[in-house]
């Protein structure tokens, strides 16, 4: 067993959104304790010339560490990695992160589908996925993939979303997802803070 892997947390939370999602994240993330037991990966649709202002803004308001994702960075519990503008963010099977400049998906790079589909491959049923407010169908196929791999799927209630297109598309593709208001989502995430840190057991 690779010793680097034995400390890898084997569950993760992924979040995707676009229009209005910065405000939504500002309601969800600041409440999380610094000891949050899962790595968190976020894709928000950003202007291509954004220089990391979203991660900096969130970091200044949060107890958890929020940073721009770096290529080949290992997933770390309690660390929130935000996809940089103009790059897709993917999770590798060895729980490190990769960036790519492959074609935009639904005119978006980073794309929520790209993150969610790769994270579903890596984490399977140990993945929690959240689709927030947004004005694009990106994320719908990704959420469906998370569900198909046995992961938990949550969607911000389109009725309370600033832009309902994204949550509606996600629910159409993945009707099994739970529909939650932002305050219910905040409570669910807080409840996850009490999850035990699951680490890869050694092979027996």
């Amino acid at each position, binding site marked *: 067993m690779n010793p680097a892997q034995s400390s890898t947390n084997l569950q993760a939370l992924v979040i995707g959104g676009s229009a209005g999602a910065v405000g939504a994240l500002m309601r969800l993330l600041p409440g999380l304790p610094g000891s949050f037991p899962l790595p968190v990966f976020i894709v928000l649709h950003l202007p291509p010339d954004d220089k990391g202002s979203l991660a900096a803004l969130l970091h200044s308001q949060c107890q958890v560490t929020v940073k721009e994702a770096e*290529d080949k960075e290992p997933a770390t519990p309690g660390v929130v990695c935000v996809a940089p503008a103009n790059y897709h963010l*993917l999770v*590798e*099977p060895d729980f*490190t992160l*990769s960036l790519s400049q*492959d074609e935009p998906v639904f005119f978006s790079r980073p794309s929520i589908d790209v993150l969610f589909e790769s994270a579903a491959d890596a984490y399977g*049923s140990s993945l929690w996925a959240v689709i927030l407010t947004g004005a694009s169908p990106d994320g719908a196929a990704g959420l469906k993939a998370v569900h198909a791999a046995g992961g938990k799927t949550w969607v911000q209630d389109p009725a309370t979303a600033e832009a309902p297109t994204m949550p509606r598309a996600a629910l159409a593709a993945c009707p099994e997802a739970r529909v939650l208001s932002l305050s219910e989502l905040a409570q669910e995430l807080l409840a996850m803070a009490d999850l035990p840190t699951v680490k890869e057991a050694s092979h027996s």
Partner: protein
Amino acid sequence: MKHRDTDTEGIELDLLVEAIFRKYHYDFRDYSAASLKRRLLQAREYFGCHTFSALQERVMHDATLLPQLLGYLTVQVSEMFRDPSFFRALREQVVPHLRTYPSLKVWVAGCSSGEELYSLAILFREEGLEERTMFYATDINTDALRKAEAGVYDLERISLFTANHQRSGGKSSLSDYYTAAYGAAVFDKTLRKRTVFSDHTLASDAVFAEMQLVCCRNVLIYFNRELQDRAVGLFKDSLVRRGFLGLGSKESLHFSSHAAEFSEFNREERLYQKRQ
């Protein structure tokens, strides 16, 4: 969690990549698995195959499919003077060091269809360094190399290239370097008269010359840690002492085993300088 080792699609994908390596000697085994899978899924859809096993059977028995498959796996879309601030830093901070050498060698590793090469050639001409420089433009994909050698780009991309060139501190007009015809911009062939285009793979080929500058931007992100280490090792071995390495705007030597052998010359622009 799912186990890649027992997941059917994971097994098929590994076998396909192994088969491509054994039969055609293109080695994608140490590419980043997640983006490789996305690209292979796109190729699978294009070829109308329902599984990676079906795609493997077709590729194994019909070598004419290989160039298209390689297109899916290797082609990067680039721009001239992409990340203009990188070229500005190169011009303002690295060029003064390069001027001190009587002759220069520059390696554009993973040059794809050549946008980066022409950007450097124009910058070197503007700075008066072109006549003492040899450029080496290498890529794994021979179709891409042919495009690089042709130097013909869609005219509709030129406004972006022009804006990038200006923002990079360009001292001339980009229109000095191409002629427009039939929706295409054909770049001045004298820009590549000092360039050697060559088929080279960072996965298995060796160092071939001693360089003052290596640019390899947005290539390493497609490699896993081991292959990144191999590639950066090649760059280190080919660079002269105090030679320069330029990476993509989200690439770094942060997680590289060669990190200690380079200093951060300009951290923000991902310009590194070899120490020894």
